[in-house]
């Protein structure tokens, strides 16, 4: 088990190096001279050349890459062309809201996925209609779900707020930057509750698609487990069908659903970027959306790195969780 964890963590380092290599190559491809960008559009050629030398952009390619990676490790993500702030500062400001949305979206996706999987594995009247409903959720682009959600739940029925992460202009800032938690920390329960209220619709929209995929995999492996010998044995012992499903089949099926969850996180991150733009959610998705029209590559690269690192870490955790739930995984 420990060997498995160590191996998994080592492979994570290699993957992260690959990620930085890709982003580094893209930066070279984007024809943006970071020195020129750093000094501004009116800088003289001499000043640009001097800055290029100071920043190390006249060194050999490989040396530049190492310089880049060591910069990243020290938190240097270069300077945004749009906001003129270091990208790392911008990201630190925008990240908490994204973490809030992504974590609650992921949590919702897992819960809904389990529910969808268990329901659709059962045979009942209207099961076909239920599957069709799930298929529709999975086929709807996140922006359609968001638009309809805002239009109906917030515009017409006024049940849920349609924009932002809070309706307070003087909401407490810090220590985490996540409104719900900060509200609780400062003892302002109304603010925290309002934050939860703002979170429901965007988190639900982000979660629906991945939840259906997770539910599908769970159903498939549940059905396979229910046909297996151990399920037959459990039934032959006279156990109730409920017990067979929940105690015997489920544990053997969770592993596949978990690895699907890991894979879905990538799609979910792309969804988070879109949803943040629609809901004016103050996260890095909104930040990257504002950077795209300005061709602000350092900002886009920074967000890509942060989301990529998040994805890789989540997948490493998922793999380790899988080994905990199903020790056979660690044997490979």
């Amino acid at each position, binding site marked *: 088990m420990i060997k498995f964890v160590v191996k998994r963590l080592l492979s994570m380092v290699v993957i992260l190096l690959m990620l930085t290599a890709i982003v580094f190559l893209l930066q070279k491809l984007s024809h943006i001279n970071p020195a020129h960008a750093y000094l501004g559009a009116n800088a003289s050629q001499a000043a640009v050349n001097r800055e290029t030398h100071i920043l190390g952009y006249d060194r050999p390619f490989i040396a530049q890459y190492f310089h880049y990676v060591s910069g990243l490790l020290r938190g240097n993500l270069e300077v945004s062309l749009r906001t003129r702030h270091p990208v790392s500062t911008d990201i630190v400001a925008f990240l908490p809201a994204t973490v809030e949305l992504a974590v609650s979206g992921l949590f919702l996706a897992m819960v809904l996925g389990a529910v969808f999987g268990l329901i659709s594995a059962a045979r009942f009247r209207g099961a076909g209609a239920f599957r069709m409903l799930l298929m529709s959720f999975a086929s709807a682009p996140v*922006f359609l779900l968001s638009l309809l959600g805002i*239009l109906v739940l917030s515009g017409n029925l006024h049940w849920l707020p349609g924009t932002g992460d809070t309706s307070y202009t003087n909401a407490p800032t810090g220590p985490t930057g996540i409104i719900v938690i900060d509200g609780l920390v400062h003892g302002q329960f109304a603010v925290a509750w309002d934050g939860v209220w703002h979170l429901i619709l965007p988190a639900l929209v982000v979660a629906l698609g991945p939840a259906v995929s997770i539910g599908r995999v769970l159903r498939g492996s549940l059905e396979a487990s229910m046909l297996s010998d151990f399920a037959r044995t459990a039934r032959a012992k006279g156990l109730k069908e409920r017990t067979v499903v929940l105690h015997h089949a489920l544990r053997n099926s969770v592993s596949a659903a978990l690895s699907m969850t890991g894979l879905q996180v990538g799609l979910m991150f792309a969804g988070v970027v879109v949803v943040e733009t629609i809901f004016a959610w103050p996260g890095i998705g909104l930040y990257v959306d504002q950077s795209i029209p300005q061709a602000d590559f350092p900002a*886009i690269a920074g967000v890509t790195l942060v989301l990529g690192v998040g994805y890789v870490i989540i997948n490493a955790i998922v793999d380790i969780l899988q080994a905990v739930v199903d020790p056979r995984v660690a044997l490979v």
Partner: protein
Amino acid sequence: MAVAEAFIPSAPRRGTARIGGARRIVGRASIAERVGFALLAVLVLAAIFAPLIAPYNPITPSGLPFTSPLHGGHLMGTDEVGFDIFSRVLYGLRTSLVGAVLVVTSGVIIGGLIGLVAGVAGGWVDTVLMRFTDLFLALPGPVLAIAFVAALGPSGFHTLLAVAIVWWPFYARIMRGEIRALAARPHLEAATLAGAGPFRRAFRHLLPGATSAIVVTASLDVGNLVLTLAGLSFLGLGAPAPAPELGAMAARGLQYLLQEWWVPVMPAIVVFLLTLASNLSGDGLNATMSDS
């Protein structure tokens, strides 16, 4: 040698024989899947004949801004400039469909070739190629695609290129898995003993057996691609305005949502219909080709 090989059955034609009979595929599909096939057929025809069906030019104003749907001869209304949304949506459908099919095809070709080479060659070639594939698989494709397009500069072609670059590893994995499974079968041993070289084994004895798995995967993947491409276009990473792209139309119409809902919602609904039709058809194809 040729005589000896004549007795060797080539790869089991799981599926390939059935691809021919479209009627059999539809016949075995569930009602929902049949609806999916029909919807997909309608959408594909609409995309092909868009210039004939579209009542107006998609990029010239054809009426007052914000005409509501079904008024003044505008089936889906007009947008903030006065463009006919129905006409734009038809052309957008074309872009979406062509884009998704192109990326799936490139994924199948690039990934399929890499998987085929890895599976046939085995040894260190297999290890190197698959490690590389796994590295790509371990990164979030859609997020990388955003950075790719941003680096290359937003355009319809760059978006397709970016998504194609991140989309192949999945197919490499599947192809390699199928090839390794087939390679262990007796017919391959027989082919090798009969003197078939690596090329003949790859293309005559292995590839045909792997096609059905790849076709099913690809057909289930079209819907994902429609969604991913629409998402990128929504973020402004597609063809520049006023090109009729579904995602971009929804994004630009976003500000009018609460008063003129049809401006952003109509294109979004078309993305939904196209994805739903692709997913249902993919399911239908999967169900009929995998049960035997």
